């Protein structure tokens, strides 16, 4: 006879990966829908997690649903692995899922990021999870979620082009900084989260899956592998990334990647690589260590 104890697991204070099975099931369904309709915002319940809303709770719920004990997890904020909130998230995932943490883009199987995509190319076996503060590219022209949803259904995006056109008229160029809106798979306009324009071409026809999740706003969307991601632009005024191609990192000497600008007391500014571990690897290699650096999306400051 089978005893009840043999059929059940011992009591635990929390489920594996913190989220309970019903929450994970809902997440998986939402993720599958998001992959099936690229760029379309899929609503989900978004459970509370032991972190404040707006601090990566959407990305965290995706990561906690995807993670398994064999996962290798990299978490970055503004490109840095040791930024305080990235550290906090990585430690939490390691604690509740027993997964290994890493700083190395090449080594990671799940990469959760706020505001950056690493400079090294991602592969088919890697998943990028972007934290999203505001999932709605239409918010500035339509703050009501319910009306914006209708506009997406109608592919009614004219007002977004109008915003860009107004910028051109007022300032002589498109002024949109980060969160540059892009058309996904020729159908849905999405915000790629507040990544710099520099990172947006990395999503176009990429080999990896990108999941974008907004915990506070309860929306998830995806860019599946090999999906077209086209920044909104005009025939005569094309999309432009930040003019960082010629900047040189004062720590590593590397040029041609997205940089942080560090103001100096004498009124000048220095630059350093925003992808911090990419910089560390470059320094190590220059010091003679055998460090493997992956192929990069940009070469000599231009998308390859």
């Amino acid at each position, binding site marked *: 006879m089978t005893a009840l104890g043999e059929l059940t697991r011992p009591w635990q204070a929390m489920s594996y990966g913190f989220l309970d099975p019903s929450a994970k099931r809902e997440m998986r369904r939402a993720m599958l829908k998001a992959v099936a309709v690229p760029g379309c915002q899929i609503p989900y319940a978004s459970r509370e997690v*032991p972190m404040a809303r707006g601090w990566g709770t959407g990305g965290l719920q995706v990561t906690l649903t995807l993670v398994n004990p064999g996962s290798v997890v990299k978490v970055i904020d503004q490109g840095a692995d*040791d930024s305080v*909130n990235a550290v906090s998230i990585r*430690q939490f995932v390691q604690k509740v899922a027993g997964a290994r943490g890493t700083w190395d883009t090449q080594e990671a199987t799940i990469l959760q990021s706020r505001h950056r995509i690493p400079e090294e190319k991602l592969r088919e076996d890697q998943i990028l999870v972007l934290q999203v503060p505001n999932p709605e590219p239409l918010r500035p022209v339509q703050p009501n979620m319910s009306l914006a949803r209708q506009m997406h259904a109608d592919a009614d995006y004219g007002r977004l082009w109008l915003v860009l056109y107004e910028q051109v008229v007022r300032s*002589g*160029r498109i002024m949109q900084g980060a969160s540059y809106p892009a058309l996904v798979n020729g159908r849905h306009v999405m915000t790629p989260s507040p990544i*710099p324009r520099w990172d947006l071409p990395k999503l176009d026809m990429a080999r990896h899956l990108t999941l974008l999740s907004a915990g*506070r706003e309860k929306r998830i969307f995806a860019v599946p592998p090999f999906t077209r991601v086209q920044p909104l632009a005009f025939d005569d005024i094309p999309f432009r990334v930040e003019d960082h191609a*010629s900047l040189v990192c004062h720590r590593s000497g590397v040029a041609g990647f997205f940089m942080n600008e560090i103001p100096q007391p004498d009124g000048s500014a220095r630059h350093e690589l925003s992808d911090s571990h990419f910089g560390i690897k470059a320094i190590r290699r220059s010091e003679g260590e055998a460090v493997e650096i992956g192929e990069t999306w940009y070469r000599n400051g231009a998308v390859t």
Partner: protein
Amino acid sequence: MAYVATRGGERAIAQSERLYREGLGPIDRDRVAAVADALPWLVDRVMGEASLYEPELAALALAQTGGDLYEAVLLLRAWRTTQPRLAIARPVTQDRLFTHRRISAAFKDIPGGQILGPTLDYSHRILATEVLEGRPLTPAPVQKADRPAPPHHPSLAAWQKAQGLVADPAPEEVAPEAIPDLTREPLLFPAPRAHRLQGLARADSGGVLALGYSAMRGHGNAHPTVNELRLAEAELRVPHPRGTVFSAGRVKVSQAEVAAKEGGTRIRLGFAATLGWNEVKVIAAATLDLNAPGAAKGTPTEEEFFLYHTEPVEASGFCIHFKLPHYVTFQSALDAMRDANARKTQPPADPLLRCENTLGGSGGRSAPGAPHAPAHPAKETTE
């Protein structure tokens, strides 16, 4: 490794948390009990916003956060969301509430009577400074009424319905497992009535008050009259696997019904209820419910507006998230600003031509300096 040495994130966050907790000192059972005993109304407020009725856990959350209400609510919500659903209790009707306090402003007297119950409404708000001089504030004993008030009272709305003053739609039969649950489903609009009432029940008391008050001052179309306000205990009647229904205990609840004229012939009601006793919240929330039908999009009494903006965990979390670094986003904007400024110093005649001229160029990286803002800031999409 000069690069790494300049960074100390992991150690810094560990120490900053220690510094905060050191200020609070050790948290033990005695402190939790002291919080529960001394601050029952605060415990009620936190339980309502957490939508978790457990006074001891709420007191623990308050003790553990030193009384930071948003942190306490987040602790309870994050705990609550991982708990299994054991059973769905039977619906509670007003006439089955074990009622401590029940008042109506709509009539001088009502069937079942006005029951004042515990309240500070008519007290003089004088700070008892003598307590600090060593003379405790010892409450005078309550003198019992000759006849105890009945524990159960009919709802005033039932009388109004019988009079034809209030619409009496047939109750909708919903299977227990089919009741919409805001904590397990996304909120979409127009929201099911269950979602709206659940959202208001767990809303931020201060947030609901701010928006409800804006409606009361005239930013809504209906002036609320308190039809009935109750502080009560609701019995948790739960089906047993054997088929019987048993009481699993009682929870404190507050509810408010506010009334306004509808088209001159009828009374329209707004309703709100929450776990714990919190009168301000339910009156304000019922006022929002009352004003919601037909409210224009983007106004404080419109359902999408008040449900999104009174959610305490979302609102407080997003507010404090602005402390996180945003330097990549900022850098991305600087680039465009400098380029635009460089163009302004040498503007060609035609704005569209201006862009074409520099498309292939370096983009004119000017010397660092404060970029001057245009007269009307250009709108950007998100952030």
